[in-house]
C-alpha cells in the first residue's frame, strides 16, 4: 500500500534533506531501490520496516557514511560525503555509543567539541555534561559507565554542536526503562523545537508515537508508505506500519 508523500510545501524554503533516485547494493543484493525522499525542517520522521528493509542503509546515506551507487543525497543542499559543512548539520546517535572507552566523559566531549570547531571550549563541554546529568561523572572513564549513562554521553556527543538533523539508528537498543524514558523525553523536547529535524529508525514503534510527525515505511529497499502522522496511539502507528508491509504480498504495487 503506497501513499503519496505529503510533506510541507517545497516552494516555501529549500529542503533540509533531499534524496533523489538513490540506490545501494551489497554485492548482488539491492538494499535500496531508487528512492526519493525529502525532509524539511520540522519533520520528525519515523523510518520503519522489517529487518533488511534498507532503513539503516538509508540512514547511513543521509549521514554521508555511505555512497549511493546511483542518485544523490543532499543535506542542506550539499553532499554530506564531500562537504564538511553539510556534516556539521548532522548528529548521529547509534545503537553503539560511539564514544572512546579509554577517555573520560569530559575528554570525550572536549575532543568532539574540537572536531566540530566549537568555540566555547570548556564551558560548552561543562554545559553539555550538566544537561545530560553527567556533571558528577565528568572524570569517569567512559568504558566504566553503564549502558544507560553511556547512551547519555553519546547523546551529549551527538547534540554538542546543535545539529539541525539528528539521525538515530536503533537508539533504544540495550537501554533499560529509565534510560529509554530519558531518551524519549529528550526527543519529545526536540520535536517541539523549531528548525530541527530527525530521522528515527527503531523497532519500538509503539513508544515513539508522539515523538514523530511523519512515517516512512521501507520494505525490500522500496518505500511503501510516506505519510504525515498527527501523533497519538502507539498501536495505531504499529498497525499502519504492518499494513504498509502486508500490502506487498497481495499486490505488486509500483514503488
Amino acid at each position, binding site marked *: 500500500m503506497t501513499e503519496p508523500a505529503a510533506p510541507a510545501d517545497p516552494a516555501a524554503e529549500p529542503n533540509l534533506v533531499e534524496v533523489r533516485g538513490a540506490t545501494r547494493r551489497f554485492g548482488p543484493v539491492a538494499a535500496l531501490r531508487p528512492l526519493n525522499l525529502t525532509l524539511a525542517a520540522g519533520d520528525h520522521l519515523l523510518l520503519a520496516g522489517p529487518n533488511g528493509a534498507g532503513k539503516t542503509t538509508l540512514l547511513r546515506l543521509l549521514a554521508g*557514511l555511505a*555512497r549511493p551507487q546511483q542518485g544523490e543525497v543532499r543535506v542542506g543542499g550539499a553532499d554530506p560525503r564531500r562537504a*564538511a559543512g553539510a556534516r556539521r548539520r548532522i548528529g*548521529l546517535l547509534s545503537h*553503539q555509543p*560511539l564514544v572512546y*572507552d579509554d577517555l573520560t566523559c569530559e*575528554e570525550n566531549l572536549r575532543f568532539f567539541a*574540537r572536531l566540530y570547531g566549537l568555540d566555547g571550549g570548556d564551558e560548552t563541554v561543562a554545559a553539555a555534561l550538566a544537561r545530560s546529568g553527567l556533571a558528577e561523572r565528568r572524570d569517569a572513564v567512559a568504558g566504566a559507565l553503564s549502558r544507560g549513562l553511556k547512551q547519555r554521553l553519546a547523546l551529549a*556527543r551527538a547534540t554538542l554542536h546543535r545539529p539541525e538533523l539528528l539521525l538515530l539508528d536503533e537508539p533504544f537498543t540495550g537501554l533499560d526503562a529509565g534510560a529509554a524514558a530519558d531518551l524519549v523525553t529528550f526527543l519529545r523536547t526536540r520535536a517541539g523545537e523549531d528548525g530541527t529535524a530527525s530521522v528515527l529508525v527503531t523497532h519500538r514503534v509503539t513508544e515513539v508515537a508522539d515523538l514523530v510527525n511523519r512515517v516512512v515505511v521501507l520494505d525490500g529497499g522500496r518505500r511503501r508508505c510516506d505519510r504525515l502522522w498527527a501523533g497519538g496511539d502507539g498501536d495505531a502507528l504499529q498497525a499502519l506500519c504492518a499494513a504498509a508491509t502486508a500490502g506487498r504480498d497481495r499486490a505488486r504495487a509500483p514503488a
Partner: protein
Amino acid sequence: MSLVGQTLAILRKDLLAEWRTRERLSPMIFLVLLMLLVFNFSFDMAGAPLHRTGPGVLWSAFVFASLLGLQRTFAAERDNGCLDALLVAPVSRTGLYLAKALANLLYLLVVEAVTLPLFTLFFSLPVGAYLAPLPLVLLLGSTCLATTGTLFASMAGHTRLREFLLPLLLLPVAMPALISCVAATGAVLEHSRGGAASWPPALAAHLEMLAVYAVVYSTVCLLLFEHVIEE
C-alpha cells in the same frame, strides 16, 4: 576547523588514550627486546662483523614490532564504533589519515629510541659520532612503514584475513624501503671502522632513495585513504 587543527585534535586524542593505557607502546618495546633475544640465538652475532648481521637484526626486530603496533591503528575506532562518529564529523579524511599516520610514526620512533640503546648494549656496538646519520635513516624508514601501515590497517577489519592482512600487504609493499634501510644502516655501521664522523659515501645514495620512497608512499597512501575508509 583547519586541516592542521583537525589533525592535531585527533592526534592529541590518540596520544592521550595511549598515554593512559600504554597498550601499544609497552608490548611493542617488549617485543623488540624479545626479538633481539631470538636473533642472538639464531645468528652468530659475536662471530661475524656487526655491520653484516646487525642491520638485518635491527630492522627485522623493528618491522616485527611495528606490524603488531600498526594493527591497532584503528582499534579504538573499531571497538567502540567511533569510526562512524569521526566520519560523520566535519573532519576531512586527509586529516584523519595524517593524524593516524603521525601517531604511528611517533610510536615507531619511540620504540626505536629504546631499541637502539638496547642493541648497542647487547651486541657491544661502540657508540660514537659515526652513528649520527642513524636517526635520519630510522626516521625515513619509519615514515615509509607508518604511512603504508596506516593505509593497510584501515582495511584490516573488513576482510576475513583480519590480522593477516597487514603483514601480507605491508611486507612486500614496504620491501624497497626495507632494503634501503638495511643497506643504509650497514653503511653507517661499517663506517665505524673509519673512526671519523664523516659521512660514509654510499650512504647518500641510500638516503636519497629512502627520501623518495617516503614521499611516494605518503602521497599515494594519502590519496588512496579516503577511498578505503568509507563504506
